[in-house]
């Protein structure tokens, strides 16, 4: 029997990273401040996790400007979408497997 835990993605162990992915799954493009507001985390904390997700290739970053203020937006990548869907499928399998 295949161990259902195998499908779980280590990257999504963390609640902030899981939250970022959840938000980006349903929103095309979200900027830093909106993410911060929705997940109720500090700047530094969020920034670290975003870099982490970007390094994995799960999200892409777009640095833009509104007037002179920087406006950094984040969007999910194809591979991020796949990784997240796989993770959710694995979670669902775990529940089914135990029942």
């Amino acid at each position, binding site marked *: 029997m295949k161990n259902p835990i195998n499908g779980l993605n280590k990257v999504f162990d963390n609640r902030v990273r899981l939250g970022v992915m959840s*938000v980006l799954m349903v*929103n095309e493009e979200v900027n830093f401040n909106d993410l911060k507001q929705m997940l109720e985390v500090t700047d530094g904390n969020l920034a670290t996790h975003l870099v982490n997700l970007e390094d994995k290739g799960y999200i892409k970053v777009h640095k833009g400007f509104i007037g002179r203020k920087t406006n950094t937006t984040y969007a999910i990548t194809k591979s991020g979408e796949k990784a997240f869907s796989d993770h959710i499928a694995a979670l669902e399998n775990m529940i089914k497997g*135990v029942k």
Partner: protein
Amino acid sequence: MITLCYKVLFMSRQNQLETMQEISDIKRIMERSSRFISLSGLSGIAAGLCALAGAYFANNILNNYYSEYNHGTGYTDRNFDSLKIKLLVLAGVVLAAALILSFIFTWRRAKQNHLPIWDLTARKLMWNILIPLISGGLFILAMLQYSEWRFVAPACLIFYGLALVNGSKYTLTDIRYLGYLEIVLGLVNTQFTGYGLYFWAVGFGVLHIIYGVLMWWKYERAAVNGR
């Protein structure tokens, strides 16, 4: 051996709960980040009452105009212009009152639930409602520019309905049905143009109130009773 089995079972039970918690967290975040859920039913009721009051005053203004028209001076440009201005001012006041009151109730609900009133979802909702609404508003003003008054009420209803259907993707989905009803009412109204004010009162007054009561009953009643 038995304790080991028991331990394994217990562990997986614990895991299962954690996993379910995780999935429900994901769902909650997805829901909350894509829809503005603080819209209050009381806002609908308040807007509906404003509309009914507005329709009542508009009816009075029109009656005065016609009694002068029939028994007094007949048609004069001055009377007609003053009628147009009175009705436009009234419409502006009703719109402002409805917006302010509905904002207050929705703001209150957001505060009660400790949710931000102005976030990504609110902006998306606003933007998607405003596109059909402003197009409709400008279109209606253009009609009035040529004294084409017959389709003002139907156009109000249709564009407002389209705005709600468009906005329903970013808030409570129930609002879509209100949108459908407004559109249908507006289209029916095009065949009974003399009764525009009545259709308007039903669409913006009665439907809003019914919708508001239903939404309050469905989403907010529990919160009030729970306190």
